């Protein structure tokens, strides 16, 4: 063994193995390095530190000025790390501050659903002098918890009347004076701690929905994250179009933590890391996180057409916001029930959405549309990076309500409540540790769900997931026209569809297609049929991008066979040779599960093929001449070579 080891004193900071894999003494943190701290390891170019360490106790984390690229094809423009005998390049620190490694980060990650080492306290925060005693039961008992906030955690009321109305069920307040109430789990210690705030969705107002996320809050708090759950029950009931109000409530709760963080003498003074915030919403609250992302950037909001602009700059008691929302996450969200005057919301933050195939409430997977609209390609500048990443998780068998631990089942899930909560814990644990605690390895989970299934953190549940990085170059996004042969500029190429049934369509048919995207439909019934994208020499330039990525999914149409996985091959050629890989070896393409209403939805699975794999198999990835979807594989478990698959967003990606 001749591993390359970077040390700070006696500590191993990073190991570059002969295999090309890398492991870190702690975690790697992307885009966190501004200046080298005294006594820390620092690799500089001139005055600029590109890579360094930050020590916490006995652990040194690697901080990168920019990003880490694994499975990397090296740009050969920076500091090269070679194996001890000098024959093989293992890593490269690129001059802008990106770190490239030849294979993968192999740190052993622990189950993100496992609790951490922090103790925490339980806190109730609420507006002062609230009394629900005048309400009938069960309201009186359900909301009594907010009558006695923890000492020092009395909050305030806000005027929500420009945005919505409280349901008229006898609340001890009206929309002019809604309370900032919530439940909190606060880690022990001096902090500052990141902040994660959950909000429920619409439900019968006679049941307090707020405690339903305590199981997630306690997980996050045990890892050193302040985790809260927002009371928005006063908007629950037969309310419609009120999701702008839910968004304002969510942002005002974030603001409450900023107030406390700045309030000398308060227990949270200086204890909240306001640069590390995640907002999470369920159902209508999930839609509202998108509106919150929009409102977070504004100084005034026009709630509905014809309305006066409502200042959210503090002049009317709402705002200002402008928070550092690191992640907006949606659990089984609705979509566009409230439409901003600027049109359906396009989320510009890092966005994660999870939804169950057996959802009996938001049964049409509305959040898929939100996902499709997030981080869209700009036709005027298609090569531009997006503002963030987006990720989607489709959980076979999960329903709508079990993500909230107090909501009874609304239908017939095919997994248990414990399993469903387990999925939520794994994913929100990973998201929080990856983005809020800068333990970037955990973000690999949202790029690749097999990290969870292979480790048995999630067992016995079929998952479909998508991930789109903010660094991507579309080869075909199918948004320019209705022609399945169009290659997306600036990529220069053409498509051969001569021997397969190919059509481009908008993925919305009121039945199994429920999206807001154009894409490609391919049918085949003979082995050897194919769809090929050809490139001119230099027509496809990977640059620093490391993966060939696309999303593809089965429908329940006749060429597919229930409940079998679909399969095909991917063939990539340069000017001299080609390499073929079986798709099923990289990602599964399962048959859709029957939904709550005996319906089916086509949800695409992402496939990521490392360019390094192509390079290792003799392909010049800087001179790719064609990419072919070759239909030569039988449906898994059968002898039939036939099928219908939907494809979209063929791209090179980080």
């Amino acid at each position: 063994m001749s591993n390359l080891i970077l040390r700070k004193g006696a500590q191993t900071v990073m190991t570059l193995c002969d295999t090309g894999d890398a492991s870190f003494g702690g975690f790697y943190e992307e885009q966190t390095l501004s200046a080298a701290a005294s006594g820390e390891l620092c690799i500089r170019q001139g005055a600029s530190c590109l890579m360094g360490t930050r020590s916490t106790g006995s652990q040194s984390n690697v901080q990168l000025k920019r990003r880490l690229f694994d499975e990397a094809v090296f740009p050969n423009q920076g500091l090269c790390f070679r194996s001890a005998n000098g024959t093989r390049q293992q890593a490269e620190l690129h001059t802008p501050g990106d770190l490239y490694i030849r294979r993968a980060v192999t740190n052993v990650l622990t189950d993100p659903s496992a609790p951490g080492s922090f103790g925490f306290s339980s806190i109730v925060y609420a507006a002062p002098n609230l009394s629900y005693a005048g309400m009938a039961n069960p309201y009186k008992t359900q909301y009594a918890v907010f009558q006695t906030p923890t000492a020092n955690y009395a909050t305030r009321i806000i005027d929500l009347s420009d945005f919505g109305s409280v349901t008229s069920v006898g609340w001890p307040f009206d929309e002019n004076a809604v309370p900032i109430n919530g439940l909190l789990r606060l880690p022990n210690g001096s902090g500052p701690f990141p902040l994660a705030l959950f909000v429920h969705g619409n439900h019968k107002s006679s049941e307090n929905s707020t405690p339903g996320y305590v199981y997630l809050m306690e997980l996050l708090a045990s890892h050193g994250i302040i985790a809260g759950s927002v009371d928005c029950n006063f908007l629950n009931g037969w309310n419609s179009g009120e999701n702008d109000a839910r968004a304002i409530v969510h942002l005002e709760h974030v603001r409450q933590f900023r107030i406390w963080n700045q309030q000398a003498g308060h227990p949270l003074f200086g204890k909240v890391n306001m640069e590390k915030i995640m907002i999470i919403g369920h159902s209508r609250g999930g839609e509202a996180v998108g509106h919150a992302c929009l409102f977070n950037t504004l100084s005034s909001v026009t709630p509905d057409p014809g309305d006066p602009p409502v200042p959210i700059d503090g002049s009317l008691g709402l705002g200002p916001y402008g928070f550092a929302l690191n992640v907006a996450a949606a659990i089984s969200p609705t979509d566009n029930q409230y439409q901003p005057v600027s049109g359906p919301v396009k989320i510009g933050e890092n966005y994660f959405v999870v939804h169950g195939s057996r959802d009996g409430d938001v049964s049409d997977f509305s959040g898929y549309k939100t996902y499709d609209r997030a981080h869209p390609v700009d036709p005027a500048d298609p090569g531009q990076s997006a503002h963030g990443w987006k990720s989607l998780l489709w959980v076979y068998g999960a329903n709508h309500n079990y993500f909230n631990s107090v909501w009874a089942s609304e239908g017939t899930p095919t997994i248990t409540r414990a399993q469903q909560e387990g999925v939520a814990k794994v994913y929100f644990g990973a998201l929080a540790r990856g983005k809020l605690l800068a333990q970037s390895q955990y973000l690999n989970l949202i790029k690749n769900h097999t990290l969870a299934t292979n480790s048995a953190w999630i067992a016995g549940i079929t998952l479909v997931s998508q991930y789109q990085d903010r660094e991507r170059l579309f080869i075909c996004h199918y948004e320019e026209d209705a022609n399945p042969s169009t290659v997306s500029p600036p990529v220069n190429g053409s498509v051969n569809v001569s021997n397969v049934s190919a059509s481009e369509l908008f993925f919305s048919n009121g039945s199994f297609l429920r999206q807001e995207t154009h894409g490609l439909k391919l049918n085949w019934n003979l082995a050897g049929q194919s769809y090929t994208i050809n490139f001119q020499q230099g027509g496809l330039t990977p640059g620093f991008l490391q993966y060939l990525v696309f999303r593809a999914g089965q429908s329940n149409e006749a060429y597919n066979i229930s409940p079998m996985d679909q399969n095909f091959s991917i063939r990539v050629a340069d000017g001299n040779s080609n390499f073929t890989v079986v798709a099923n070896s990289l990602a599964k393409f399962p048959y859709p599960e029957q939904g709550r209403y005996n319906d089916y939805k086509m949800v695409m699975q992402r496939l990521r093929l490392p360019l390094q794999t192509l390079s290792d198999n003799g392909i010049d990835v800087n001179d790719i001449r064609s990419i072919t979807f070759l239909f030569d594989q039988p449906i898994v478990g059968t002898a039939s070579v036939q099928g219908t698959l939907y494809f979209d967003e063929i791209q090179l990606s980080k």
Partner: protein
Amino acid sequence: MTDSKSDYPSFEVTKVEVVASEPNAGELRKILFLAPDTDERAATTYLVKIYLKTLPEPAGANYELWIGDQKVRKYTQFKGGIYFKLYDIESVNLLEGAPICFRREGEDNCIPLKNKYVIHDCPGYLKALEFAPLRRQSRREALDE
């Protein structure tokens, strides 16, 4: 909760009523924005109350309310059903003869009401036409609280 997606909840409108109410702070800002010459002391929010025999259990999915060919962007629950707001008597008058329709979100067809209902079936509405402006009630009074 229904057993089949085609099994819609049973919407039965039993009464429609328009009541005048003192505006809250946000509503007053809207009224003064739309009609800057309004006397604040007489400013009125018109609540169009649609009484429903039963209200299914609320959930994430939404039922859109349409009055004629206009989607009501916001409506809210009160004890007897749902209501939406208008900010001038002319807008109330425009409801004349318009049918009430509920739609599942994203669908184009109305859910069949147990009884056909149009706004001119509403005594309160006629009262609004004849005696506008109506006596302004407090919000709690207007919502039968």
